[in-house]
C-alpha cells in the first residue's frame, strides 16, 4: 500500500488502471459467475469501493487483484442474500479462503470469451458497440457518450439493456463452437470496424473525423489480433485501420474542412503508421490462407498509402482488388469504388456506364455517394451542367455538414 492520496489523484489513477486491467478483471469475474452483465456490475461496485477507500488507505500494490477479490466477495454476499448457495459459490468461497489463489492470473481466453459475448448476435449493432467499448475497451459510459455524441443516459440504457438481453438469452460465457467460429469472429471484426468508420468519416454532426474514436477502435483491434493471432482477418483489419488512420493529419484543414484523397498533402501522412499497417498485412499474409475481405481492403489502402500522388497510384491493381472484393463481399459501395478506380485506370467513360448501371438498379438510393461520383465523372467528360446538377443532388443528401459544404463548393466550381 502507498500512503494516503488525494481523491482526485486516485480517480485519475483508477481511470488509467481501468483502461489497462478493466477487461481482464471483468473477464475473471465472468468466468467465476458465468454472467457477463453481473460481472460488469460487480466490477463497477468494486471500483466505487476503491474510490472511497484508497484515498485513505493508499493504492494497493496489485490493484487488479484487489478489485477482483472485492468483487468476488460481493458476488458471494449477493448469493448469500439470495440463498443461492450452489457449487459456484463454494468454488469462489474456497478460492477466497486460500490466500494463494488470490494471486491474480487472468487468462487471455477469458478476455476472448468477453469479446464474443459483447458482440453476440442477440444484441443490436448499437448495443454490441457500446458493450464492446465498455467491457473490452474499458471506457466509461461518459467517454462512450462523448465519442458517439449522444447523451450519457442513452449509452447507460443501451448497456443495461444489452446486459439484460445477454442474461435473458442465456448466452454462455464461452468461445463459439468451431462450426460457428467464422461467423461469430466476423461479427466481432464488424463491430470493431464499424467503430473505426464512425470515427473515420462521422456520419452525422459537424465533425468530419473523430480520431479519438478511431484510435479506440484501433486499440481494440490490436487487442483482438493478440487474442486470435492465427486469424488472418484480425491482422488484416488492424492493417486496414492503420493505413486509413495514417491519413488523419491530412484529411482536414486547420478550420476542420475535409480534404479529399486527391487533394491531400501526402507528406503529412503518418509514415510510421503506414509501416505498421504493412507489417500487420504481412502477418495476415504469412498465415498462408489467402486474402479475404479485410485483407483485400487493406491491400487497396496500401496501394494509396505507398503512392506518391494520385497519378502515381497503381490503379489497375486497385481495380483487380475491388473485383476480388466484389466477388467475396458484393456491395454497391464496392462496385462504386471499382468504378472510380476504373475511371483512373482507363478513363471516365467506362466508369460512367458502370455508375449508371448501379443507379438504374436503385442501389445506394438516398445516399450522396453515387451522385457525387457521377458528378466527378461528368465533370471530367466536360459535361459541366449535368455535373453541377449531380453535385447539388449529392450536397442535398449529405448527412455530414462538412461533406455537404465540400459538395456545394464543387457544384459552384464546375
Amino acid at each position, binding site marked *: 500500500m502507498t500512503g494516503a492520496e488525494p481523491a482526485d489523484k486516485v480517480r485519475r*489513477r483508477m481511470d488509467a488502471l481501468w483502461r489497462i486491467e478493466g477487461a481482464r478483471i471483468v473477464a475473471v469475474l465472468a468466468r467465476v459467475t458465468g454472467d457477463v452483465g453481473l460481472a460488469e456490475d460487480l466490477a463497477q461496485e468494486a471500483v466505487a469501493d476503491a474510490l472511497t477507500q484508497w484515498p485513505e488507505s493508499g493504492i494497493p500494490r496489485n490493484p487488479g487483484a484487489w478489485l477482483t477479490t472485492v468483487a468476488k466477495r460481493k458476488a458471494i454476499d449477493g448469493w448469500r442474500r439470495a440463498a443461492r448457495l450452489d457449487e459456484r459459490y463454494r468454488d469462489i468461497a474456497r478460492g477466497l479462503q486460500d490466500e494463494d489463489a488470490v494471486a491474480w492470473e487472468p487468462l487471455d481466453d477469458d478476455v476472448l470469451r468477453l469479446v464474443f459475448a459483447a458482440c453476440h448476435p442477440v444484441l443490436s449493432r448499437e448495443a454490441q458497440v457500446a458493450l464492446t467499448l465498455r467491457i473490452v475497451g474499458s471506457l466509461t459510459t461518459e467517454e462512450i457518450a462523448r465519442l458517439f455524441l449522444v447523451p450519457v443516459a442513452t449509452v447507460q440504457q443501451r448497456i443495461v439493456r444489452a446486459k439484460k438481453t445477454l442474461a435473458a438469452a442465456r448466452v454462455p460465457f464461452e468461445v463459439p463452437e468451431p462450426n460457428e467460429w467464422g461467423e461469430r469472429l466476423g461479427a466481432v471484426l464488424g463491430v470493431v470496424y464499424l467503430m473505426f468508420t464512425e470515427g473515420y468519416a462521422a456520419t452525422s454532426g459537424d465533425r468530419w473525423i473523430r480520431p479519438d474514436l478511431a484510435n479506440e477502435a484501433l*486499440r481494440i483491434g490490436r487487442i483482438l489480433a493478440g487474442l486470435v493471432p492465427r486469424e488472418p482477418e484480425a491482422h488484416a483489419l488492424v492493417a486496414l485501420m492503420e493505413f486509413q488512420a495514417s491519413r488523419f493529419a491530412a484529411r482536414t484543414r486547420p478550420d476542420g474542412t475535409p480534404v479529399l484523397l486527391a487533394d491531400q498533402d501526402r*507528406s503529412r501522412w503518418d*509514415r510510421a503508421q*503506414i509501416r505498421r499497417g504493412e507489417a500487420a498485412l504481412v502477418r495476415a499474409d504469412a498465415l498462408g490462407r489467402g486474402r479475404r475481405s479485410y485483407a483485400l481492403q487493406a491491400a487497396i489502402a496500401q496501394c494509396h498509402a505507398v503512392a506518391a500522388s494520385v497519378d502515381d497510384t497503381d490503379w489497375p491493381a486497385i481495380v483487380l482488388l475491388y473485383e476480388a472484393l466484389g466477388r467475396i463481399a458484393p456491395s454497391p459501395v464496392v462496385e462504386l469504388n471499382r468504378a472510380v478506380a476504373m475511371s483512373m485506370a482507363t478513363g471516365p467513360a467506362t466508369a460512367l456506364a458502370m455508375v449508371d448501371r448501379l443507379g438504374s438498379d436503385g442501389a445506394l438510393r438516398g445516399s450522396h455517394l453515387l451522385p457525387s461520383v457521377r458528378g466527378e465523372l461528368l465533370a471530367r467528360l466536360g459535361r459541366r451542367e449535368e455535373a453541377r446538377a449531380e453535385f447539388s443532388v449529392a450536397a442535398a443528401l449529405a448527412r455530414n455538414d462538412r461533406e455537404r459544404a465540400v459538395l456545394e463548393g464543387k457544384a459552384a466550381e464546375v
Partner: protein
Amino acid sequence: MKYMFIMRSTAEALEAAKEMPFEEMINKMGAYNESLIKAGVMLGGDGLADVSEDANFVVDFSGEPPVVTDGPYGETHELFNGFWIIQVSSKEEAVEWASRCPLGPGSKLEVRRITEEADFADFSDNEYIQKESEWRKQEADLNSENG
C-alpha cells in the same frame, strides 16, 4: 497521445545486470513487451547495442567541423540503451505502463511526450516545418525502396 520511454542505466547497473542470467532478463523484458502489445498500446521500440562496441560513436558539435569520437556517452554517465513508443489516452496511463517496466536499481526510465503536428500548428506555413514533412517523406520512400 504518444510517449517515448527512454531507458537509461548507469555503467555500474549494466555491469551488475551482467551477473543476472541473460535469459531471465530476456524473459522479463519479453513478458513486459508482450503486455504492451496485447493491450494494443505498443507502437514500436528497440534496444541499443552496448557502448563498448566499436559500431557506436558520438558526434561532438563543440567545434567546427564536428568531431566524431568513440565517447563519452551521456552527461552524467547515464547510458541511453533502449526505447519504447506507446500510444495512450492520458499521462496517468503512461505512468502506469512506465512503472511496470522490469528495470532494476541504477536504471531509470525517462518518459517524454512525442510532439504532434498540433504542437507546430502556429508554424504550419514555416518553410522548415514544410521541409521536415518533405524529409520524412523522402526517408520513408528510401525505406520502402530498401524493403
